[in-house]
């Protein structure tokens, strides 16, 4: 960034987590509105992205987190839509019964929840792993 004004913030600390407006970050009587310079949108011709190492690592982190989230979400969506179309196009499954209740009722009424919970736990672990990797790289 060439424009020092754009970097200027009301809070003195410079870590990326702390220099943005947080409404209730500190107990301030009134909000300090942080604004980009008014002519910012006029003067900017797309600046070339900064290629600092830090920036690169952040991008990497975002990409890996997004890939992870999309993978889990796609799996979930495929599973749900898959089960839904299976029930429509292959209704024979309803003839399978457990304690006189058809199989689809067991799958939908009980079976899906453990899957959702396990997916959530695995995701949380993997996301934390991505963050650990980011931390070790960006500090080392």
């Amino acid at each position, binding site marked *: 960034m060439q424009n020092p004004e754009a970097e200027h913030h009301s809070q003195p600390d410079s870590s990326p987590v702390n220099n943005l407006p947080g409404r209730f970050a500190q107990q301030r009587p009134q909000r300090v509105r942080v604004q*980009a310079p008014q002519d*910012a949108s006029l003067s900017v011709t797309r600046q070339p992205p900064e290629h600092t190492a830090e920036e690169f690592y*952040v991008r990497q982190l975002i990409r890996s987190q997004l890939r992870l989230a999309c993978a889990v979400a796609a799996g*979930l969506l495929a599973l*749900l*839509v898959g089960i839904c179309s299976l029930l429509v196009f292959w209704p024979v499954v309803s003839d399978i019964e457990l304690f006189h*209740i058809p199989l689809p009722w067991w799958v939908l009424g009980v079976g899906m929840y453990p899957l959702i919970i396990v997916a959530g736990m695995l995701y949380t672990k993997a996301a934390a792993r991505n963050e650990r990797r*980011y931390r070790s790289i960006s500090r080392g």
Partner: protein
Amino acid sequence: MASLFSVAALIVVCVTTMLIAFYGLRISRTTSDFYVASRTVRPWWNASAIGGEYLSAASFLGVAGLIVLSGESGLWFPIGYTAGYLMLLLFVAAPLRRSRAYTIPDFAQIRFEDSALLRKLTTYLVVVICWLYIVPQMHGAALTLSIATGLPGWVGPIVVAVVVCVTVLSGGMRSVTFVQAFQYWFKLAALVIPTLFLLARAIPEHAASERAQSLSTQLESVTTMNMYETISIILALLFGTLGLPHVLVRFYTNPTGSSARTTTVIVLCLLSAFYLLPTTLGVLGILYTPELGAANESDATILLLPGRLLNGVVADALTAIVVGGAFAAFLSTTSGLVVSLAGAISQEFFNGTVRGFRISTILATALPVLIAVLTSSLALAGAIGNVFAFTASTICPLLLLGIWWRSLTAKGAIAGLLTGAITCGLSLSVGIFLPTIDLWWVHLLRQPAAWSVPLAFVVMIVVSRGTRRAVPQNTDRVMALLHVPDPSSNS
């Protein structure tokens, strides 16, 4: 006799709720406390509070009702509500917490500092969504009270509104957190106890006779929804949860981004445990109260089941427990919605002062009561499903693209929000008046999520691409704020 029990249960729930709120008042001292509990709420508390807030009339009464009404298709609703939370965990939980946004308009402002219009637009959308969501709660209250006690329909909404106002006004978010954490466990108990009693009565009766054989035929006999509608509902519920204002407010009370994730996983467990109960009761409803489905009164299933299966004091007591739980559901969801609604209104019009918050609280509750008293109830879970479709087509694309796509521009976001709001809103309002006939365009209008959500995404992306010079300068820094792990979670 039965109504006496129910009134007693109702009073106990309301008084306990208000007592916890007063207890919370002693703790909350500053503006920050008042709004967001100073972010000191532990994951288990917070998860219980989220569960308490999320399990609304639609979950408590509506899920069983829908199972009676549309059989197997009804099972998709609780799955969607739960899986929606998984989506929230995947895409929103940690980044939103790190953004320090308290409301969705705050998020819009953090991401696009310069666009006052975007902030305004999201504020109005939040207000509309909250009101749409509160009205079914009020309908549920009217239905419950008139079935259980025979009082006129308007009493229920008034009771809910008064208790919610007192709760929210007296303690703000801190007390609301306590209240809602309590109400999750109360709601769970209020369904566990009747379910156990009813199963104990129903299982021997079925196992012994040839009625067991008829069980599966009865389950299969209920007419289900068609495939397009089912998939559209799944999409609406999955993506709609991401944009629910009262759910997102909760994430602010987590101390860090990673604790926001822990909280969400606990919520998944709590929701899963809860939804087994209305599902079971729905199956019992198909067996014992199938006529409610035909009469479009299926939301009353859980309230009427105890009286249908058992008699005497036990039935009355169980009905009273269910009534208490149902009111806990109305109260907790409504107070959560009112808190975020009042937060949005007061920041928009009263500079976020505590006094402004109080005025906004009254405003936020009064209008839905009026609407609820003047209109009559749709199927609860269906009405809530429509709200999910609306949030999925508006707030959800804004959050998803805002968090994950650095090329989003304010103009793109505004265009997408307007497209989603107008197309989804119009088709839902037209769809309400259409008869349920099996024509493809009727299905498209009644369940718009499958096309309106992708449409909103596409418009947002295309317009952002067209205005790529307007990408805010500080985007990289905002992205880092959202995604860089908190230093404190290192230990």
